Each structure stands twice: as C-alpha cells, then as structure tokens.
C-alpha cells in the first residue's frame, strides 16, 4: 500500500466532519417538516437539504471533489440524460388528447385532427 499516513489521517477527520454534518442535516430536514410549511416551500426546503447532503456524500465519501476527468466526463453525460429524464413529465402536460378541450360539446363537431 502506498499512502501518506498523515494525509490519510487528515482525510479521516474530514470524513468524520461530513458524517456529523449529514446527521445534522437529517435532523434539520425532519425539524423543518414538523413546522408544517406550505407544500411548495416544504418541497423546496427538503430538496435543498437533500441536495446539500448528497453533494457532501458524492464530493467527500465518493472522492468526486478530486477525481480524474474521465469520471467527470462520464458523470456529465449521466447528468445530462438525468435532467432529460426529470423533464419527461412535462411531455404529459403538453399531451392534451382526451382532455376536455378536445371533447366535442353537444351540437359541435370535434376538432378536425381528432375526427
């Protein structure tokens, strides 16, 4: 094994600090939930805290804060496709087939494209 013990010991201190921060973040998430905020605000707060915690796990525990460019490249492509995946639900909003505006009222013909 080739590792500088002093460097590893310093890294271990960082792991412990991040671990403590993750525990604290979990407590804050649950505490914020007990306040009963409005749903949009509650979602925003919970997801911001989760994102901060996730970044700490990825950056420190998974060593992404100092990784090789090939790893960053692979993750960049993944993030791009992940964002596309998260926006797929928007397509269901733009799909109006079967919605009331496309159902013909009595005495009126349905729009031409749906006959």
């Amino acid at each position: 094994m080739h590792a500088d013990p002093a460097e590893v010991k310093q890294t271990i201190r960082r792991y412990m600090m991040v671990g403590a921060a993750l525990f604290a973040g979990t407590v804050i998430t649950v505490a914020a939930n007990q306040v009963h905020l409005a749903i949009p605000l509650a979602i925003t707060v919970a997801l911001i805290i989760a994102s901060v915690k996730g970044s700490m796990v990825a950056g420190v525990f998974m060593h992404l804060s100092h990784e090789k460019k090939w790893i960053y490249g692979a993750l960049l492509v993944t993030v791009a496709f992940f964002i596309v995946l998260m926006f797929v639900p928007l397509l269901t909003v733009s799909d109006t087939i079967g919605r009331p505006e496309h159902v013909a009222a009595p005495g009126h013909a349905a729009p031409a494209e749906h006959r």
Partner: protein
Amino acid sequence: MNIPYTVESRPDTGLHNCKLGIWLFLASEVMLFGALFSTYIILRTGAIEWPHGELNVWLGMANTFILIGSSVTMVMAWASLKLNQFDKHKWYLIGTFALAGIFLVNKYFEYADHFTRGEGPWHSTFLAIYFTMTGLHGLHILGGMVVMAYFIGPGKKMWTTKPDQFANRIEATGLYWHFVDLVWIFLFPVLYLL
C-alpha cells in the same frame, strides 16, 4: 493470462479498470433510479390528492441515521487499508454489514406493519410507488451485503497476496455503498416527509 490495469492506472485515462467500471455502473444506476423518480413526479402531479403521514417518519429517520453511519464505517474501512491496518478494516466492514442488516430489519417491520393492515402496493398509487422505490433500494442494500460478506469472508485472502488490488475492490464496494446511501438521502424526504 493477466488482466492489465487492475492495479496500475491506464496511461490514457489515469484510472484502473475497477474504478472506471464501477463509475460506469453507477451511471446506469442513476438512470434506473432517475426513471423511478420521474415516474413519482408524474404520479404525484397527476394525482387529485396525495396522502401525508402514511409512513412512520421516526423509523425512516432512524434508517437514514443507520445508512449515514454505515457510509462512515465503509469509508473508514477503506482508509484503514490505506494505513495498512487490516484488523481495523475488518471491524469497520463488519460494522457496515451489521448496519445494513439493521436497516433491512427495520424495513421488514415497516413492510409487515403495512401488510397486516392490508396496505400492499395494490392499495393506492402512493403505496405502489413507495414499495417499488424502497423495494428496489432494499435489493441494492442486499446486493451490497453479499459483496461485503464476500470481502469479510473468502475474499479477504487477497489482502495477503495483492493488497493494492484488494484496496481497489474495497474502494469500488465503498463507491457503490455511498451511492445506495445517496439514493436513500433523496428517498427519505420524498416518500416520508413531502
């Protein structure tokens, strides 16, 4: 025949096979769980009403603590190898394995409570997506436990013959484990709190 770049880094990527391989696998996992999170968004935004308080927040919080604790012990297992302290490594890995087991036991009690009340995945859209997401996550925990059991048991022999390769394998196991923790960090607020 020896497989190249199991320990030394490839000159073009600066990475050994194990690391590049596990990261590509994790990229595919991001898409797998991403598809389920996307499904959750569709189901939730399309629902007339969405249940609140159906799940035990305190049990979910306890499981979050357990997984975070297991991530710390996992990264310590790897750091111990870097310090040539195999005994410490072994106990940290056993600790991670035990915490994973406790997580699954908690999950079992949670599931059992739902099923005894007749609240299976068929009961509601919320419970359908809840069981799908946490069930898949639980399978990942189980998979991680199988790998850890191998390195606690028969796989540990490699430390005496090829210590660097063994450390690389533990690092890859750790990356997978932290990813499983990362997924739970998002699952907990999404399913239990919101």
